[in-house]
């Protein structure tokens, strides 16, 4: 499998990404997750900062781990950085496999690890006020369920 990893400022085309994931021979299932900037509590924008190079390395490690655990045929992870406004897409995770269980599970696994391990930070803007988003314990417990016993 040669996964596609992209850290980018610009938007992405979900239909084109699903189409690309569907092209591989033997694909019977494509599961995807698209994350959006939630319009909550007067939020005007989110700015995403990341650690260049480590981000790509960390995501590649998670993809290799997913490939070890599930029979994947193709995978794509796209994460946007920079300033985004409510309703904009932030993140895309797509996984192709022969069967649905593997694609659903690998997609959730990748998303849970992206949230707790990939070096991104969100700063919220509400009018003139800016504040850094705090990490959530619920994200840690979501990732924890994938730990191999």
């Amino acid at each position, binding site marked *: 499998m040669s996964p596609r990893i992209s850290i980018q400022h610009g938007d992405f085309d979900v239909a084109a990404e699903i189409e690309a994931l569907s092209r591989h021979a033997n694909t019977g299932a494509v599961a995807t997750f698209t*994350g959006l900037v939630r319009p909550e509590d007067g939020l005007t924008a989110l700015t*995403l*900062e990341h650690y260049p190079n480590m981000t790509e390395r960390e995501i590649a490690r998670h993809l290799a781990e997913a490939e070890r655990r599930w029979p994947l045929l193709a995978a794509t992870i796209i994460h946007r950085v920079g300033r985004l406004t409510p309703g904009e897409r932030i993140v895309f995770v797509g996984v192709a496999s022969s069967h649905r269980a593997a694609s659903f599970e690998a997609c959730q696994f990748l998303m849970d690890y992206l949230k707790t391990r990939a070096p991104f930070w969100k700063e919220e803007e509400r009018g003139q006020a800016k504040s850094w988003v705090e990490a959530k314990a619920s994200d840690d417990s979501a990732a924890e369920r994938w730990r191999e016993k």
Partner: protein
Amino acid sequence: MTLLYFSWVRQKLGTSQETLALPAGVSTVADLADFLRARGGGYEEVFSAPSRLRVAVNQDHVGFDAVLSDRDEVAFFPPVTGG
């Protein structure tokens, strides 16, 4: 060594990057955090509460007990909030 700072750590220190020779007596990340805290000001504020910080050495997540060398890239940042 190269030190990198992200998110509010970068903002409180007023810099995103600095180059430093491995200070005498510093062998682990915890030692380095103590060394930086002793600079005072924003450094004291950031490094007085290391439980709020995470660290990567050469772009791998590590604990504060990780051993450092003079050629390392060490990054301090808050727990990540992507996705």
